[in-house]
């Protein structure tokens, strides 16, 4: 367990980095605000994500194998617009890292 970084850096990832991941980024911002966690959320495409080192990476399962080791915490999400579903996936992942 480590202390949660402030702000927590979060990267929303999709194939092209401008549409789907932008929508996911907005859903992430909603959830982190609700959790009261200071987070800086960005969005990018799959290849650019490999060159970054965010604390939390959020994306679809089909992309996660390519992104192994990029972030401390990986969260797979199926529904990019359902903030309740995203929160349900984020909570245990953040708790496991000692960041909740």
């Amino acid at each position, binding site marked *: 367990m480590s202390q949660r970084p402030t702000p927590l850096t979060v990267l929303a990832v999709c194939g092209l980095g401008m549409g789907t991941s932008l929508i996911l980024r907005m859903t992430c911002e909603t959830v982190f605000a609700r959790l009261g966690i200071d987070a800086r959320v960005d969005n990018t495409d799959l290849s650019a994500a490999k060159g970054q080192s965010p604390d939390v990476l959020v994306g679809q399962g*089909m992309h996660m194998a390519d992104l192994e080791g990029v972030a401390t915490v990986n969260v797979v999400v199926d529904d990019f617009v359902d903030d309740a579903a995203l929160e349900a996936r984020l909570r245990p992942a953040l708790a496991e890292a000692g960041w909740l």
Partner: protein
Amino acid sequence: MAVSTVPTRAVHVAAVPDWTAAVRVAGDLLVDLGVATADYVTACVDSVHERGPYIVLAPGLALAHARPEQGATGVGVAVARLGEPVVFGHPANDPVDLVLAFATDAPEGHLDMLRALATALGGGLAARLRAADGPAELDALLTGAVAGA
């Protein structure tokens, strides 16, 4: 400063052969709107071939798009509702009966539009689109969703 409105277009089609046809139906609406070229529509399809069906971002809903430099000539958004859903090959969100498509001719030109769209989708836009009576109501819902963007 003039108030900008994002042009929209909507259609309901009873059935299409496959997901590529579904993306083309939605993309062609952007061409009709004058915000994308035929090349842009092809790029929307190719993007899924190259990168996978990640554009299926919620159950039953896909968001087709390509890069601005691939033939976008303006900002606009469209929706094609399918009477018979199609399979994109997405592990969780298939089959798809709503294909949204957008174009933007500037890298940052779509941010407000997508922000509005994301908020609307989070607030149940997909269910309202599915319940809509026909193209006119579909279009009105979409226009309302991105209004003020």
